[in-house]
């Protein structure tokens, strides 16, 4: 009897655990490492690759200077510098989004199989990320970077997801065509910069 009661409780607990585990399912990953490697080889994304963006939005050293030295002018100088750097990084991230979006459109032009729904989804994501980036830039310019690190991290992961989407689409291009595509992309980018 005791054994049965124990098993009943154990079974219920394990069932609840499996339901809880469902909530922590890994996200869908439709990109291959090869496609992401090819993408990073073709497009340079300095804003997205910058690993220390989080530091730009942290105020610990600003607080430390205020608390330990009491020199407000130095702390304010640090805040201004951080704001300038954060704005510069956000501009770079915006450039990356535009480059990714151009590249994604190039893939469609190049004949990668896609659907209208997928194209609309890409455009919607790009516009949403750019809109959020613009908003964040305005906020950082007005109020400084220190209150917006969560928002910046969210937008950065949004751009990462966007680049993974591009990687997934690039994965549909045959490997033998990649060199040709890379050359075509470079020529277009050179024309884009010179214009």
């Amino acid at each position: 009897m005791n054994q049965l009661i124990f098993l009943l409780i154990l079974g219920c607990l394990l069932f609840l655990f499996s339901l809880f585990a469902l909530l922590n399912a890994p996200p869908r990953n439709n990109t291959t490492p090869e496609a992401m490697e090819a993408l990073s080889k073709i497009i340079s994304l300095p804003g997205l690759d910058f690993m220390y963006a989080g530091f730009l939005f942290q105020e610990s050293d600003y607080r430390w200077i205020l608390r330990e030295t009491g020199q407000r002018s130095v702390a304010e100088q640090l805040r201004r510098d951080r704001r300038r750097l954060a704005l510069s990084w956000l501009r770079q991230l915006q450039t990356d989004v535009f480059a990714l979006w151009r590249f994604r459109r190039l893939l469609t032009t190049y004949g990668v199989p896609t659907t209208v729904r997928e194209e609309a989804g890409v455009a919607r994501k790009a516009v949403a990320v750019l809109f959020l980036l613009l908003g964040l830039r305005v906020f950082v310019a007005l109020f400084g970077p220190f209150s917006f690190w969560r928002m910046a991290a969210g937008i950065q992961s949004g751009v990462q997801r966007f680049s993974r989407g591009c990687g997934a689409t690039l994965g549909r291009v045959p490997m033998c065509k990649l060199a040709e595509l890379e050359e075509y992309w470079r020529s277009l980018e050179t024309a884009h910069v010179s214009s």
Partner: protein
Amino acid sequence: MHLVDYLTIYSGLALELLLLWRVGKARLFKHYPFFSSYFLYTFVRSFVLFFLFALHSRAFVTIYWPSNLIGAFLWFAIVWEVFRQTFPRDSRLRRVAAEIFVGVLLLLALVFYLSGPQLVGHPVSEFMRKVGLSVAVSVLTILGLARYFRVSLGRNLWGMAVGILALASSYIANFAAIDLSPAIRPLWSRIGPLAFLLMLSIWVVTLWSYDPNPKPVASDVPAHEQARSFWEKRWAAIGTTIRRAVKP
């Protein structure tokens, strides 16, 4: 039969058909052969039982429980699939993980042995509880090992593991409750099929497309070789220096 029973039967068949379509389209038969063998067995069994039931055949009662016991035994095929994909043959962790995994199963066998030979309740219930408990412990061990060794699971493997864990744990609770009191049997007899539906739903969502475990970043072999040869040269130089110091 109630409306709920009909809904359970038809939604189960629909989910199985949907999963069969996705498994075929994403070529999961090739990637997950052990999982596919269990799924194909379940698929064929469900449709055979459905037609026997629809034809009011006596064979339905004859084959229902034996085929259910075989199906429960085939849960181990999914456990093996999860293990072999989480710790593949070329993984350095495979040996350690296998030893721990076998150790846990031996411990569980010891618990079953120490609990004595007498049956608690019906033999079928006893078998189902023990198989369910073994499968649940196996899946939890694999998930625990993967977490401990920081092995990332892909969406497919995660779905397989969580789906079978939900079904096995519901069977443990279900068959314990049925033997505890016959009065609550009608209520608990619905839990098993509903848990099966839940497992199928989890599998349909997580096995919609091929999503394997992320590959770990390959180690830099040339750099390792360079470091090793550097270390060997230094080690040889230390030997020479010591010999010179001892015998000047």
